[in-house]
């Protein structure tokens, strides 16, 4: 144990807060991330991280909570993309690009102002790359509330969202309002990006959103399993990242720990690379839960039909 967990890991309050915030960020990013990848909106997800950067740095400058800045800007950005973007795929892409570039410009301005105000590079580092050990534990209930809200909205729109992602025409014909479903989804995306910006920084929140989801898509054949695997990967990567970062304080004589975000992103990348190994994909395909049960059921129907025919 001594080798795994350096002294004080479990008794440290900042570590406990980091584990809770990290897990919440990982769970909602995983759920929203699978939908983002299925919808082909990774670009929009990334653009929202830039919007969140602008919001976070603006919040730092004006002295309000960075979480409010991250999420407020994200929700505003999501709305802006929807208003500019209308229904067509190409214009959606263009809208994303416009919002992204404007947001990055504001981020540049605010980060400059932050740096000159506090006369250190700490603010820039904190906003872009996160500082999960310095998160104020008072925001935990707020983050829990947002996470629950995100999961409820995702659950409510799950089926209409899925069909409209597969075929907008099919979904419209079923009476699904594409615009409403798309906007609700963008709001959950903005919250997911905001919460993970607090955890691992606005720039790296894309990694938590897309990485576990992309890995799970390689390993599973249905949405429920994809979401479960994505959550598991995200949470494990985040917790291991927190542990390694904490331990890294003791690795070097200088006693300067390495950033949590680096470890989390490295672990996510590792999982993605490993999931690409053909042997592992085959193993995952064979051991998918629910598969055997379904095949048996299918066989019994075929047998019944054959006996009716004779």
């Amino acid at each position, binding site marked *: 144990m001594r080798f795994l967990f350096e002294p004080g890991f479990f008794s440290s309050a900042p570590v406990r807060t980091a584990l809770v915030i990290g897990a919440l960020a990982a769970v909602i990013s995983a759920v929203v991330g699978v939908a983002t*990848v*299925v919808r*082909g909106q990774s670009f929009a997800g990334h653009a929202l991280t830039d919007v969140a950067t602008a919001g976070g740095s603006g919040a730092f400058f004006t002295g309000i909570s960075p979480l409010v800045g991250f999420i407020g800007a994200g929700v505003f950005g999501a709305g802006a993309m929807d208003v500019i973007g209308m229904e067509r795929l190409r214009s959606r892409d263009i809208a994303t690009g416009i919002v992204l570039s404007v947001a990055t410009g504001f981020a540049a301005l605010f980060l400059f102002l932050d740096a000159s105000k506090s006369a250190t590079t700490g603010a820039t580092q904190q906003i872009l790359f996160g500082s999960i050990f310095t998160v104020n534990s008072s925001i935990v209930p707020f983050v829990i509330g947002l996470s629950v809200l995100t999961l409820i909205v995702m*659950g*409510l*729109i*799950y*089926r*209409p969202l*899925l*069909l409209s*992602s*597969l*075929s907008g*025409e*099919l*979904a*419209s*014909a*079923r*009476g*699904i309002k594409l615009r409403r479903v798309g906007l609700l989804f963008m709001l959950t995306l903005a919250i997911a990006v905001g919460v993970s910006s607090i955890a691992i920084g606005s720039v790296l929140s894309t990694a938590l959103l897309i990485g576990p989801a992309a890995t*799970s*898509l390689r390993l*599973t*054949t*249905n*949405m429920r*399993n*994809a979401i479960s695997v994505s959550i598991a990967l995200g949470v494990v990567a985040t917790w291991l990242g927190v542990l390694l970062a904490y331990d890294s304080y003791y690795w070097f004589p200088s006693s300067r720990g390495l950033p949590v975000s680096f470890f989390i992103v490295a672990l996510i990348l590792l999982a993605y690379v490993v999931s690409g190994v053909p042997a592992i994909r085959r193993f995952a395909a064979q051991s998918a839960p629910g*598969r055997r049960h*379904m*095949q048996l*059921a*299918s066989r019994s*129907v*075929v047998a019944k*039909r054959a006996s009716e025919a004779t």
Partner: protein
Amino acid sequence: MNERAVLEVEKVSVSFSGRKILDDVSFEVRRGEFTGLIGSNGVGKTTLLRAILGLQRIDAGEIRVTGAPHRRGARSLGYVPQKVILDPDVPMRARDFVALGLDAERYGFTRRTKEQHALVEQMLVNVDASEFADRRVGGLSGGEQQRVLIAHALISQPELLLLDEPLANLDPASVQEIVALLHRVAGEYQVGVLLSAHEMNALLPVMDRIVYLTDGRAASGTTEEVVRSEVLSKLYGHHVDVIKLHGRVFVVAEPGRDNKDIAEHSNLTVS
């Protein structure tokens, strides 16, 4: 009207920026019957199907489904759109896609019941899709995907099934299979099938009725009533010949006429 009519289209007109796409189109589709909507590309087939679905506003006329004015999202309508591109990276098995047909438009959490699972299973068997039910829907062949799309549309037990060019881009063997399948389900589920195509020959053995569309105008009835020189010449506004050869039909315009408005089955096959 016929008491078996599930779809009545009456004097429907649609215009896009002053140009008439559909001009006074009338026909009906009956329960358990297979109706072909035939016409070359760009004559308004998709516009007509989208109008029936309530996705396209009509300027004049009336569309009734099972006697009631049509509306978007009605449970009585099943739809297989043109060119559905299913991403092979999406983790969704064929069976999941069929199950989504049960309740895709509903918000909220539900667990699928045993009865619903059995219904999906039965539907997969009925469209001969059991074999690939556990494979990703995006990785299936064109013919296999059409079966899954048909099952997705049928599982909500519609009374009218609309298919937009489902035979385009299929190999000849798959065309035969899908046509036979649709003919069988029309009878089994007592659903009215309306299928659009630019080639009528593959449909001749099963087609109970035809709606022949050109330049926004339509002639409808049984194949014998409609696919005749007098009727089609009147529809085209110039003389065309209908040639029947080895159980196939060719529509041919006189030399010098612009052939491009004639459905592709004629000039493609002849040349």
